[in-house]
């Protein structure tokens, strides 16, 4: 498995397309257990990131993802800004100086990203946050190497699994038991991130 700078660029652009497409659903999910802005936050942040990536040309994947991270950090007003921002920033550090990522290198980035989300948000698996998706995806990659189709499936399954959980972190945690019965919006946006990865990998490989 290899991900070229071109595919990594497509990934960022595709994430943006997914966020635009599912903006309303993301906000609806957030409406149920948060403040209803997750779609707005993601759509704005990734649009700016896509603009940035489109306006620049990168050989270094690290530099590209550092720009994406900075844009998310600056442009997303909610919790997801520092969280996704930190995730991509840590990944960018791992990908520094590379114009192509093999399975190991990509996994290192995802590991670093998860570490970043954990440090930033102090949540653990099962707290009904985006980490409920990222952690199993990372674990699988570490164990078996990168399989983007598998990551996509795992992400979707784990996002679904947040429905029955009680939120322990973020705004939804104020709701206690009432947070049960709804998918975590950040888990769904994270699912979209891996859905985008599977798509662009498939297209790039074909």
């Amino acid at each position, binding site marked *: 498995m290899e991900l070229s700078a071109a595919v990594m660029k497509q990934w960022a652009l595709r994430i943006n397309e997914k966020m635009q497409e599912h903006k309303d659903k993301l906000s609806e999910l957030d409406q149920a257990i948060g*403040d209803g*802005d997750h779609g707005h*936050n993601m759509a704005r942040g990734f649009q700016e990131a896509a603009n940035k990536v489109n306006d620049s040309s990168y050989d270094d994947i690290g530099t590209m993802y550092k720009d994406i991270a900075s844009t998310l*950090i*600056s*442009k*997303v*007003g*909610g*919790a997801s*800004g*520092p*969280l996704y*921002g*930190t995730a991509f920033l840590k990944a960018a550090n791992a990908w520094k100086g590379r114009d192509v990522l093999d399975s190991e290198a990509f996994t290192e980035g995802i590991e670093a990203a998860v570490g970043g989300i954990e440090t*930033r*948000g102090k949540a653990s698996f099962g707290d009904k946050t985006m980490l409920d998706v990222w952690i199993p995806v990372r674990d699988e990659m570490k164990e078996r190497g990168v399989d983007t189709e598998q990551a996509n499936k795992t992400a979707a399954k784990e996002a679904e699994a947040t429905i029955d959980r009680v939120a322990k972190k*973020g*705004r939804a945690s104020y709701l206690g038991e009432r947070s049960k019965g709804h998918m975590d919006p950040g888990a769904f946006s994270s699912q979209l991130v891996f859905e985008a990865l599977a798509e662009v990998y498939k297209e790039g490989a074909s």
Partner: protein
Amino acid sequence: MAKVSIIVISHSKELADGIVDLVSQTKQEDVAIAAAGGTEEGEIGTSVDRITGAVESVTTEEGVLLLFDIGSALMNAEMALEMLPELEGRITIADAPLVEGAYIAAVEAGMGKTLEEVKKAAESAKEWKKIED
């Protein structure tokens, strides 16, 4: 003498500005207090850039105390700290109720207390009995 500065971080620009108004009324001599409220687009949310900007506008030798409203503001406050490594040791975040903490922090800063003392005072606002029996 330099005194501790205070940053009020809130998801709402009005909220942060209002606290600065309320606190400024007590006119603590030489205590700078700055608001970092809302996003750069003027929406509800917080912004690292606004926080770092506010910090830079009031930094003194005595240091800067940050107070915030709810959860995700803390993440942006922590990002801001990481983006200002040159202030390490002179910048810290209080685990304090926003309005009450900012009020008492300004008073303590006005007395020339250290950053650590001002932070403690802000955090002690949790124990305020606002209504007597």
